């Protein structure tokens, strides 16, 4: 992959800034204190929380923001508690978790592949899950119906997605994982899965096509607490793993030789992080269907907001959460027709990325 001049310059500038930024050390862990990044991350977190609460408050029984905040933080009245915790929380929490999972997964993928066009979509997870789901929806009867009845569409699709992701991983493995080989193999597998999906859609009954298409876009409708619990805890567990490995993560951007010189076991680190990226994307697919573009857009937006040369992990997750929660809010309130959240994430995320690019260029 070619570095372009602009990015190299940003890289160099960041290094100069880093050399004057003060370091902070807690025992064995040390990091550089960068006020801008910390501030942006904090702002994103606050904004994410506010949109989350706003999204909970909106509905047939509107609840004012302060009351929502109070209830979410543990207080609140009986009525509010019921509406919020039992009815609205699962959906809102699902949006938050899926957004974080997709954002972090995207940041990891783009860093490992060292390519801004890479995303977990490219690793085959979403297209694999999509192909399985469309197959189960359109080929009714027999084994397909039995599978859907016993494990549910989401679980079957998740299995398909993870299977495809692992297939890509093992096909790309040849004395270690190489970013370039990984994405080219991923694109190939992706193309096969999408072709299968297209073919299934062409041959299917039009009523099934509408259902399949709706699933393919990704939606947060009708989430239950059980589903959300699974997604929440698996995401948290994966994030802990990512956090532990993440300190070895930065040197990977400089290439294998430099990373090895800095004492990083880059093979193991990359394999672990890639597996985390695949699993995070899988969790997101199982909770909301293949919501498109969040994983691609969130790291790029976070990078430009935080003014980092590489996708920042925490900020990417927060941007993802903000994007998904905000889109769900817009989808439920501002639009004349009900649309799945996936349509709105793309409709907001795409133009916002373009706006950031244009703004960066004009400076």
């Amino acid at each position: 992959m070619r570095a372009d001049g602009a990015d190299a310059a940003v890289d160099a500038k960041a290094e100069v800034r880093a050399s004057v930024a003060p370091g902070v050390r807690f025992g064995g862990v040390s990091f550089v204190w960068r006020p801008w990044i910390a501030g942006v991350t904090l702002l994103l977190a606050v904004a994410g929380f506010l949109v989350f609460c706003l999204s909970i408050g909106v509905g047939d029984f509107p609840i004012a923001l302060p009351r929502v905040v109070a209830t979410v933080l543990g207080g609140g009245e009986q009525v509010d508690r019921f509406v919020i915790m039992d009815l609205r929380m699962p959906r809102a929490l699902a949006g938050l978790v899926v957004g974080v999972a997709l954002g972090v997964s995207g940041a990891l993928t783009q860093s490992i592949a060292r390519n801004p066009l890479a995303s977990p979509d490219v690793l085959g997870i979403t297209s694999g899950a999509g192909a399985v789901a469309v197959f189960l929806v359109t080929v009714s009867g027999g084994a397909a119906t039995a599978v859907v009845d016993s494990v549910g569409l989401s679980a079957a699709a998740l299995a398909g997605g993870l299977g495809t992701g692992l297939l890509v991983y093992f096909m790309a493995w040849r004395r270690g994982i190489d970013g370039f080989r990984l994405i080219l193999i991923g694109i190939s597998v992706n193309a096969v899965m999408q072709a299968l999906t297209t073919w299934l859609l062409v041959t299917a009954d039009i009523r099934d096509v509408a259902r399949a298409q709706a699933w393919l876009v990704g939606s947060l409708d009708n989430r239950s607490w059980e589903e959300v619990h699974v997604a929440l805890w698996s995401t948290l567990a994966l994030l802990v793993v990512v956090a532990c490995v993440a300190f070895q993560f930065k040197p990977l951007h400089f290439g294998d030789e430099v990373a090895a010189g800095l004492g990083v076991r880059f093979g193991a680190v990359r394999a672990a992080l890639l597996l985390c990226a695949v699993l995070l994307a899988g969790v997101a697919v199982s909770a909301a269907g293949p919501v498109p573009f969040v994983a691609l857009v969130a790291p790029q937006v976070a990078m430009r907001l935080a003014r980092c040369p590489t996708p920042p992990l925490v900020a990417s997750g927060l941007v993802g959460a903000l994007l998904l929660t905000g889109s769900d809010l817009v989808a439920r309130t501002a639009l004349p027709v009900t649309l799945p959240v996936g349509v709105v994430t793309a409709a907001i995320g795409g133009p916002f990325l373009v706006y950031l690019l244009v703004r960066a260029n004009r400076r």
Partner: protein
Amino acid sequence: MYGAMTTTAVERPAPGGVTEARRRRVAGLGLLAALLVVVAAVSLAVGARALSPAEVWHGLVAAPEPDQRLTEIRLIVRTVRVPRTVLAVVAGIALGVGGALIQGYTRNPIADTGLLGVNSGASFAVVSGIAAFGFTSPFQYVWLGFLGAAVAGVVVFGLSSIGRGAGNPLTLALAGQGVTVFLAAMTTAVALTDKASLNALRFWNAGSLTGVGFDVIWPVSAFIAAGLLLALITLPSVNLLNLGDDVARGLGVNTALTRTVGVVAITLLAGAATAACGPIAFLGLMVAHVARYLTGPDYRWLVPYAGLLGAVVLLVCDIVGRLVVRPGELDAGVVVSLLGAPFFAVLVWRGKFKSA
């Protein structure tokens, strides 16, 4: 993109080796052209009703006759087989050349012809045309599709050219992604609310070479020819652009002009091909890599190779699509992915390709 710059400079072979290398490349080009002719001939003969070479020949050249059987053959050859074969060749060349060029201009090895928003622009235009005006004929789709593709391409390029960072390859790629994302969402939104559009969209998305007559093929070919001409003019400059903008400028390349011409060429090529057949994903990306493997990074050779390879692959996939699910057919776009992608993956795994 964070990696080291790879130089595009062609290794200088030993004296005498230059002519040898050139001879090999010309021979390869001749071989590909011959292969294309053979495959095209096969394409005329193969289908739901298999024809013998004599019958094909008769169908191509003979005057109308009262004989019922011969008239039928003549009809099949002239109105079904010839148009789809010509379309496959034209669209294949366009997508192959477009794929090689987009990778050159964005300096990103995973760029595909759809990157400039061309595919999503065309899809969106077609779907909205159906939803808003109730269009039904392919002839109307084609022009809407081309219009949508062209507008999307212009918007992407315009957005990426604002301000100082104009024409930065990364900006172009990401702006393309942003616009693609937006248009795809709009397409889905329309399709989910309008059943007729959804129905048309699924067939359009498959990427098919059938159902289009010469009334569409000629104008599409004219646009593609214009795109090819522009592409050929800029080829030497693409080589220099890949050394980095500063070096290219120092060597006398007008980088802004070259980029503009290049993007116009890609939009014409990919837009016209997509308008005529629907989005055929993966073809451009795949043949660009195979061509780079065969010729090395010199775009003056890479692009013609990619064009011929594109035509051969698309034709072969179309033929395969006619044979595998008889009496039905698989759409060429689906076959390209199902057949080409595993083949490509094996080549990748064996380490045949280099990044950009």
